[in-house]
């Protein structure tokens, strides 16, 4: 996992939101442009019990460990990106 991930540089908030948007789009089959960073993921069909796949992708991409419950404490992409930026900076 680490060879791939340590190379991902520190993203800006906008870059991180864009990447997350792309993942949610891929998972839900919607165009990325439709995913609003301030709308709860639940509204796009990702129920709370079924959001952990995204969590695994985040860990993999940025080489960090996140508590799956970060997805519950931040239910849309903008606050989620904020929570993740600190973790990525600290890796």
């Amino acid at each position, binding site marked *: 996992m680490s060879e791939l991930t340590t190379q991902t540089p520190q993203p800006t908030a906008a870059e991180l939101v864009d990447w997350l948007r792309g993942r949610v789009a*891929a*998972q*839900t*089959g919607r165009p990325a442009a439709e995913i609003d960073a301030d709308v709860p993921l639940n509204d*796009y*069909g*990702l*129920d*709370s*019990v*079924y*959001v*952990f*796949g995204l*969590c*695994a*992708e985040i*860990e*993999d991409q940025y080489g960090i*460990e996140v508590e*799956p*419950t970060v*997805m*519950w*404490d931040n*239910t849309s992409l903008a606050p989620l990106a904020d929570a993740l930026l600190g973790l990525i900076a600290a890796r």
Partner: protein
Amino acid sequence: MSGGAARWPTGLPGVLDDAIEAAAAPGGPFHPATGARLDAREEFPADACAVLDEHAMARAYVPAELGGVPGGLPELVAALRTVARRDVTVAVAHGKTFLGSVPTWVAGTDGQRRALARRVLDGAVVSWGLTEPGHGSDLLAGRLTAEPTADGGRRLDGAKWPINNATRGDLISVLARTAPEGGPRGFGLLLVDKATLPPGSWSPLPKEPTHGIRGADISGIRFTGAEVPADALTGGPGDGLDVVLRSLQLTRTVCTSLSLGAGEHALRLAHAFAAGRAMYGTALLRLPLARRVLGRAAASLALADAASLLAARAAHCLTGEMSVVSAVVKAGVPEIVQLAVDDLAELLGARGFLTEHHEHGAFQKLERDHRIVAVFDGSTAVNRASLINQFPALARLHRTGTHDTEGLAAAVAAGPVPPLDFGALRLFSRTGCSVVQALPDAVGRLAALAAAGDVPPRVPELARALATEATAVADAMAAARPAGRDTPPGDFGTARRYERCFAGAAAALLLLADPGDQVRVTSLTAALERALELLRPGHEAPEEAYEPMLETLAEPAKELIA
């Protein structure tokens, strides 16, 4: 074979087995006629439960460090299976206390854990209240509220239904809305002691007539301003979903014991029938088709047993992977067993259908009883959905072949399991599923054993074929998009195939761990044959593949628990 009482000859499953055997004498609470009579009258099997209480069954529901049995989840699975192979209704009725207690083991304070352990060891009945009228699988749809009171406690309003033991139970774990808006942080879990509630603040809902487990207390409970103290909360007020999802990883694993018991019972009844049934101048048991059906059913059970045993051991040795493992076995094991039961029903002909013939209609009763296993504690579809959610990580890790070598070595070994670290249960597995990911590696090692003449050459052949299937499944998983409620049906089929890969991998790894035990090798090889049949549509195991299982069936009870 490996999952049963013989592992604990002096432990609880052995003690229970003897006690149940004695109680199965004519007129006794475990005699089939007694079960049939209670079933017909929809009457609770109180005397059978009393036998289990007398022999301290509850010790299997409590962690070792709190006074429970030393063998952890594997010992609990063996104990409940021993009950279920006589009467699934009794196992469901009694075993529920484990389900209701788990949240406290997972997230309770030291004081809460000690207090509940004492109650359970004293025989208290605990139920597990998630479902509400109108809301089942969708845990966050529940309306029952737990509002704060002035003195720091909570006031419960709403109903839980249908709930096993809701009426008979002393305590109930309740998932309740702690924030009006709900959401993943808006639910808490409360352990409610019915005896301490103000009179009039709760009432039982009537027993529901059911298709199977007719004698069980399937009812409900309604709270109207029921006040509970602050320490009723298990975990924080917003931790309910987290605690429930981690608890389900253990309860779902243990549910497989009900299927193992039901399957064993079905096989025993069908074998006895075939041995005694004279036809065409011979016995049914001598007809090649009957032999095939019985042998294949025995192989299915060996396969289910391998999956269940390894899952129960994984709870102790690969704890962080239980989000995958529990979903895999809760969906896969009841289905593999149900297919076997269906085949056996056909062999029994009329006797699988008549309610008063052949062992007092025990077969049709177990067949009805077993249906519930795929429904409660998360249906097959719900478990598959949660598995699909983990597909991307599983696919990626399968490609790399990485796995937790140390944890897996402990899981497949025969020795005692380490204590279960409840805090290590995670909402999703970081290391995927070591059992499946280790399959390619096991192929090479089995081939080396076969080359040295230590296992039959068929074993690495089968393991290699299974590894090929697992790779194809991993490719399908990589292509899937885990889309929550919009998941396409094809992904559920992929999940089913992954479950069968897990079961096959479990059989291969257990065989590899102890290739010297001939009986075990025979039954695990048959399990591998069956796994491949289940994975390859149209593929049939070679003609003689299941014949060795027939020999071990000659003494059914001994073989299957040995």
